[in-house]
């Protein structure tokens, strides 16, 4: 029994996962006191916007791509979807700028920055495929304009912005999956490495007496 357990892929994956992210690190109930600025709100605001985008987008997808053109309710959900996208990008840009000025890649956190940056770059075509899937004048104009840039570097050969069917598939399935996977990886890396401490004062801060720490502190960080 123990021999087969030793060789079990499942057990190995579980042990690696728990080692990398013990429950108290994955879902901490405390965080360092330096996490005290409005700028920290924009990370969670980005995720919250993504949830609203996926929720409103799912309703639009359930009813089909033409529904929002001829019903008031459909148009309302399209408006929620569009404004959630605007909020998503706004929150993400402020979050990225904040993390840049914090040098948030310090302490072995390069992958945290990189997954965040790639998420932004993947979100751009995710939004673009939405704009060209609208089936209105904006879709006509944006697709006929966007094609030239994509064609000029050969991307148009396999990613045709004037092909509604292909763009709709990318928009409602393939690219959202990519964004969600990237955001998940980003959040898990943040949980694993913890929120980056303030610049230059790490050593001095560590010399300061620690106050009573919650479970996360005992695990070596705020996740």
């Amino acid at each position: 029994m123990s021999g087969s357990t030793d060789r079990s892929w499942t057990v190995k994956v579980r042990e690696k996962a728990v080692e990398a992210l013990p429950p108290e690190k994955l879902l901490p109930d405390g965080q360092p006191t330096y996490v005290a600025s409005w700028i920290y709100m924009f990370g969670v605001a980005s995720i919250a916007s993504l949830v609203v985008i996926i929720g409103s987008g799912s309703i639009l997808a359930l009813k089909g791509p033409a529904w929002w053109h001829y019903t008031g309710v459909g148009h309302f959900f399209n408006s929620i979807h569009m404004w959630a996208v605007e909020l998503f990008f706004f929150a993400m840009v402020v979050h990225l700028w904040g993390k840049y000025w914090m040098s948030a890649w310090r302490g072995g956190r390069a992958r945290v920055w990189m997954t965040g940056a790639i998420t932004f770059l993947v979100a751009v075509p995710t939004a673009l495929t939405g704009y060209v899937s609208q089936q209105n004048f904006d879709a006509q104009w944006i697709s006929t304009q966007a094609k030239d840039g994509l064609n000029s570097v050969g991307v148009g050969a396999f990613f045709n912005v004037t092909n509604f069917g292909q763009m709709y598939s990318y928009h409602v399935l393939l690219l959202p999956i990519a964004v969600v996977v990237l955001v998940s990886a980003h959040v898990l890396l943040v949980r694993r490495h913890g929120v980056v401490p303030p610049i230059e004062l790490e050593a001095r801060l560590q010399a300061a007496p620690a106050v009573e720490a919650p479970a996360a502190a005992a695990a070596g960080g705020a996740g």
Partner: protein
Amino acid sequence: MSLLRPKDDTKPWAGAYQPYDLVKELCIAIGVIGLLAVVLAVLFSSPDDKPSTVAQWSRQLPVDFVKTAATELDGTSGTAEYGPPYNHNGEGQHAAFIYLQKWLGVSHPIDTAADYVIDPLETVPNDPALQRALAEYQAAPEKTQKAWGEAYAKPLEEDAEAEEAGKPLPKTVSVDPTTGMVSVQASGTGPVPTMMTSLLSLARSGGLDGSLLTSKQFFQTDYTKPLLFMADGGLLDKRAEEQHLGGDEWGMMNETGSYPGQAWLWLYAFWYQIEPFKASENADVLVMLVMGVLSLAFICIPFIPGVRDLPRKLPIYKLIWREHYRAIRPRSSA
């Protein structure tokens, strides 16, 4: 130590902690953002200008429609001379020795004369004059076909140039106000006038919209052919200019109405506003390559000397962590 996992220069945090409810924070954030999105949706709605159709184009701008169709037939339209991925009539754009557009090849083949003119006209039933004109055109040598097409297109191009320059329009092109049909006075045009008149009639009836979407199967989702045909003409441009969506006005990052559009594309659109990109025939590939390099640099900021060091040199981080720096100051000076 590897490139992606550099040496840890930040020791594990051993300082003070504060209570934190991650799940509650996320739920509140979703509620607030959801409410904000609903309020914005109620207050500002979202744009939905109806799409243009080939039928509308042929009715509103009949001369422009016929001129565009003539250039599709004689192979001088934007799409006809585009090159990959639509045809082999051009090399496409390049940057130095990099010919990505050419190298990726023709994946969405478009023969503008056949796809936009001849094939749709062949679907028109019970029109012996048109069938004779098509037979004459298709039987003629390519050189003759081109000569007919160019002879027909010339007065139309002169008309368009005069209109753009605000000069009096030549009398070689006229539109019947009752029928909306276009007459072009030109010699040596062979069967082209008959073909163009029939194409305009087909377009005005809405038949060309359906014809351009027709392929080997019943269900259609690919609008490449009708969109490129319309983009060769002037209707989309006209509507875009009215809505301030032109390339010289930051182009596709905007959308109709006073909506924010794709503001995150500002840097991409910015390069088109300045030289050397603005006047370059290869502007698209140059802008895309610049954005590719910048995107790669953006991802790799943690490894780029100078860019990664800037935050340490500017005191913005002191503003972000000001509460903490203030909180620890008495301890460190004690």
